[in-house]
């Protein structure tokens, strides 16, 4: 007898084998397409081939922000402040067939008000790639998000698509790449990636072997960064995500400089990330991460955070399914740099939400200017209050 006999309650009713059923073909692409469905509430339906999607499917979201920012010094007589506004439209499109070939795009149009006399428009193509699925490999080319990281913010193994910490949703940027995913099992594979279009000094190529062992997701990766002319870096890494009641994750990366095809161990940088997350009372979620960049010479770590020690902490509270409060903080204590975000979001209608947020930033939390003079504005603290209305469609 099976426990989940009661649980049509669940999405995944757990039941045993019904051997009397007829067998019929099943097309996942047709089934998961918007128009796709079965042939009614029948047993052993004959086919689901009828509902293949035609053309592209569109979705996305639109948002409007108003932001008030105060720059250091904060006393009333000396401070500088301004209002800015922004409206954005993200349009996502997918087309094709997930059995054979697919195209996916995501574009963001952003209008910014208040930074110049006239509104400034920007356009970001986050994704535009096509994929071809064969028995041996899934091959993709174009701009895509290549996401290996186990951490919410710190992911030294992520050489391609860094987290945008200025984004309330901690989104990632797209990367122009050619990618081949060779499956080695249902939960394991070899992921080969080469960036497209970058200069030889910036291009990245290599692979990551991943799998699941005893419930732990793990990966080992090796990439060459700018090695086309024999001088660049070798970046080798390990990552895992496991479960000890609380979620635990870790990454270890070594960046070894290479000159004329000879590795130089004296300038190796090791990056170690430890993360833990926990939720309780069906309302609270806590996330903490620590990134340690250990330098043996003068070279700095690769990745978005280059300080020797960087901390991340976040706490979220969802008193109900419509409301969420989030507080998150990134700090590089030895550089006296900190970035904190507090937000309160509320779903106000189906697909629509309103978010009030506060941002505080002081110093170079990413460590972008550790090896050179920082622009004067980087040294100034800023405090912003904003409100955002967004609608998903």
């Amino acid at each position, binding site marked *: 007898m099976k426990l989940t006999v009661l649980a049509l309650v669940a999405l995944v009713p757990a039941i045993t084998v019904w051997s009397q059923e007829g067998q019929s073909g099943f097309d996942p692409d047709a089934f998961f397409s918007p128009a796709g469905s079965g*042939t009614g509430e*029948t047993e052993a339906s004959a086919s689901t081939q009828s509902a293949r999607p035609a053309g592209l499917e569109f979705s996305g979201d639109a948002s409007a922000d108003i932001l008030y920012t105060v720059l250091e010094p904060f006393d009333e007589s000396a401070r500088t402040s301004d209002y800015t506004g922004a409206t954005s439209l993200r349009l996502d499109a997918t087309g094709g067939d997930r059995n054979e070939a697919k195209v996916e795009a995501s574009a963001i149009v952003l209008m910014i008000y208040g930074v110049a006399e006239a509104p400034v428009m920007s356009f970001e193509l986050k994704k535009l790639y096509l994929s071809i699925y064969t028995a041996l490999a899934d091959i993709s080319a174009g701009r895509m998000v290549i996401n290996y990281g186990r951490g919410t913010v710190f992911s030294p193994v992520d050489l391609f698509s860094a987290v945008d910490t200025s984004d309330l949703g901690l989104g990632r940027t797209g990367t122009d790449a050619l990618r081949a995913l060779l499956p080695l099992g249902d939960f394991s594979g070899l992921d080969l990636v080469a960036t497209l279009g970058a200069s030889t000094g910036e291009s990245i190529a290599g692979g990551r072997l991943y799998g699941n062992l005893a419930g732990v997701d793990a990966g080992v990766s090796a990439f060459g960064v700018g090695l086309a002319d024999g001088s660049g870096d070798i970046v080798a890494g390990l990552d895992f995500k496991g479960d000890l009641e609380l*979620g635990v994750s870790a990454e270890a990366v070594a960046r070894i400089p290479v000159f004329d095809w000879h590795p130089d161990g004296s300038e190796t940088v090791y990056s170690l990330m430890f993360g833990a997350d926990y939720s309780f009372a069906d309302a609270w979620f806590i996330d903490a991460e620590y990134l340690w960049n250990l330098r043996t010479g003068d070279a700095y770590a690769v990745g978005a955070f280059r300080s020797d020690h960087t901390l991340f902490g976040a706490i979220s509270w969802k008193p109900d399914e419509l409301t969420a409060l989030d507080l998150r903080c990134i700090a590089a204590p030895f550089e006296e740099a900190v970035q904190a975000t507090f937000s309160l979001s509320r779903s106000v209608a189906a697909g629509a939400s309103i978010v009030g947020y506060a941002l505080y930033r002081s110093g170079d939390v990413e460590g972008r200017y550790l090896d050179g003079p920082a622009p004067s504005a980087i040294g100034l603290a800023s405090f912003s209050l904003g409100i955002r209305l967004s609608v998903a469609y």
Partner: protein
Amino acid sequence: MNRMLTIAAALAASSFLTVVAVAQPTLPSLSGEAIMNKVDSNATYTTMAYTGTMEIDLGNRLLRKEMKVVAEGKDTSFVEFSNPEDRGVRYLKVDKDLWMYFPSEQETVKISGHLLKEGMMGSDVSYEDALESGAISDKYDISVVGTELLDGRACYVLDLKAKVRTVNYERQKFWIDGERFVVLKGEMYAKSGRLLKESHALSVKQFGARWFATEVRMEDKLKKGGGTVFKMKDIQFGMTLPEDMFSLRRLNR
């Protein structure tokens, strides 16, 4: 006159019998395990696909989630959400492991153990509810505590007490349709005896010789709101699935 008396007597007898039936309907005597075996055999399948909706009653708002589900046997399923807020979010569940895929960031995340106790997509159904599997008789002592009439259906009432620690609920109580052998109602209790959750089958349909609950209300008694109603439509059984249907490769496509 005699005829009238006979009719009156018959009506009186009928009413009396109805009262007795309401109090305790008569059903064949079966053991708890035998009843659960019939429930299992009634609801078993090799593969299944359906379009589902979850309507989450928050008291002042109704959240609606839409999804398509493909399942194989008792331990494996693939879910893709299609409502605007969650469009393209996918779940892959294989045995006790659960992964989620977020299309915007092309990110696959393995769900941690502590999150399994949380409500799935804000519903009254936890990930643990969805993941729990295994033989009930291995985990619970089952006893038949009686029969009751529920929604006009004669039901066996089963009491299940945990005999191992690795269960989500210390005690459960099931109302099993005595004719169709479908769980019409379930109650899940904590060790303290507190009622944690309640399920209620709102619609039961026949597929071939089998009966299947296609609409179920799940209510988390520790939450405010009116519970989650889960509906299934366009149900298909017995399809031949692609070999990689339940793989990380397909989750990421």
